[in-house]
């Protein structure tokens, strides 16, 4: 499924990058090393982390996008970095649990 479709179904906000990636699954974790160890390329990574290392890890794992839950927003500097790395970052007021439930239905 295209990231754009998930954005419209979950009413997410795209705050950096583009929405044309193909999403091949989902991975949920707030531990960066855990994502590095277990996330597959092309997944949508759901997290509450907003630190700029999220961008590094997302770029390293070549995820389709990063969904930041609970209404949290990264700093503008982190968004600029994500923009530069062409990492799609999405924001939602939903909790991780709620977002995960909706994603489970879609993917």
């Amino acid at each position, binding site marked *: 499924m295209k990231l754009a479709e998930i954005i419209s179904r979950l009413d997410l906000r795209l705050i950096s990058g583009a929405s044309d990636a193909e999403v091949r699954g989902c991975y949920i974790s707030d531990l960066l090393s855990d994502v590095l160890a277990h996330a597959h390329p092309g997944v949508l990574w759901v997290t509450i982390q907003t630190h700029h*290392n999220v961008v590094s890890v997302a770029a390293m794992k070549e995820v389709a996008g990063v969904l930041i839950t609970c209404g949290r927003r990264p700093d503008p500097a982190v968004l600029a970095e994500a923009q530069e790395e062409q990492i799609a970052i999405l924001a939602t007021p939903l909790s991780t649990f709620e977002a995960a439930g909706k994603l489970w239905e879609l993917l």
Partner: protein
Amino acid sequence: MRLASRPQAKSPGRRRAMSLRTENLTPSRDAGGVSLAQILVYELRVRDAMTPKLRVAAPGDSLRSVQLLMKEHRISGVPIVRDGALLGLVSIEDIVHALDKGHINDPVEARMTRNLVVVRDHYSLVRAVAEFDRFGFGRFPVLDAGDRLVGILTRGDITSALMLHLERRAEEAVRREAERTAAAAPPDEAARRMVLNAKVRAGDFDGAGKLSQRLRQILRARGVDPNIRRRATIIAYEAETNLIIHSIGGRLTATVGPDRIVIEAVDQGPGIENVELALRDGWSTAGPLARKLGFGAGMGLPNIRRSADHFDVKSGLLEGTRLHAEVFLQSPRAP
């Protein structure tokens, strides 16, 4: 007084064009903006540039025989010598004059140019150049300290000598450089392969990921397989964040060899208390700040070990930690 080889000095334009201005010969520069050619004109002597093999004639020879000598050897001036001592010079101009006046069969002694301006074989070339500029002659007979004729010098000879010596110096420099490069090949090669070598500051959470990001870009630019690239980058990232979270500061290096990528993280301490425990998934000593930022999952070293094809960590509480990980370029498994 008629002087030797006047014809070449008659046209001022030509003379200027031929004049050897040393500052124009600047193929290479030495210290202080002095060209090598400028040094050479001081170093080289007239004897280094002159033509030593000479066609000469005796005072009793006829002008006709000198004319034939000039024609045969395509020369424009013949020194007149008795017992090695220079008596005079017959130039083409003298021959033309003799033909014109009908005394071409006279002995040269009667018609040759005397009172020659000469240069000495020990003169520096810069002095010879000054003599050419001063008199405007095309050539100078060269005498040694015993007044014996030892050669002849033209502006062309000076240019040729300079070019030859510049070439020799250049070849020498190239040879020396090649030798130096050959001698220094291993470290040079190592330096070329080391694609990353940077200090990592303790507690620099904001800088975390910068080096591994750079490594990722370098490996991508080199066309390294994505899976290999990803594993190498994960190792670099975990090693980098380990230095930031746990060490008092260290250094991260990455080397791309022909068959493997080697990543090393070396710190000055405090060292890992129990390496075996640290290698266990989920075991972490990270502080609350690191944990809040998503670090400290207790997965750093296990991640590195999982991603590496060869892994080694040595640590002591006094000497710090040295981590060595290798990713083989021929093993494209996913992380």
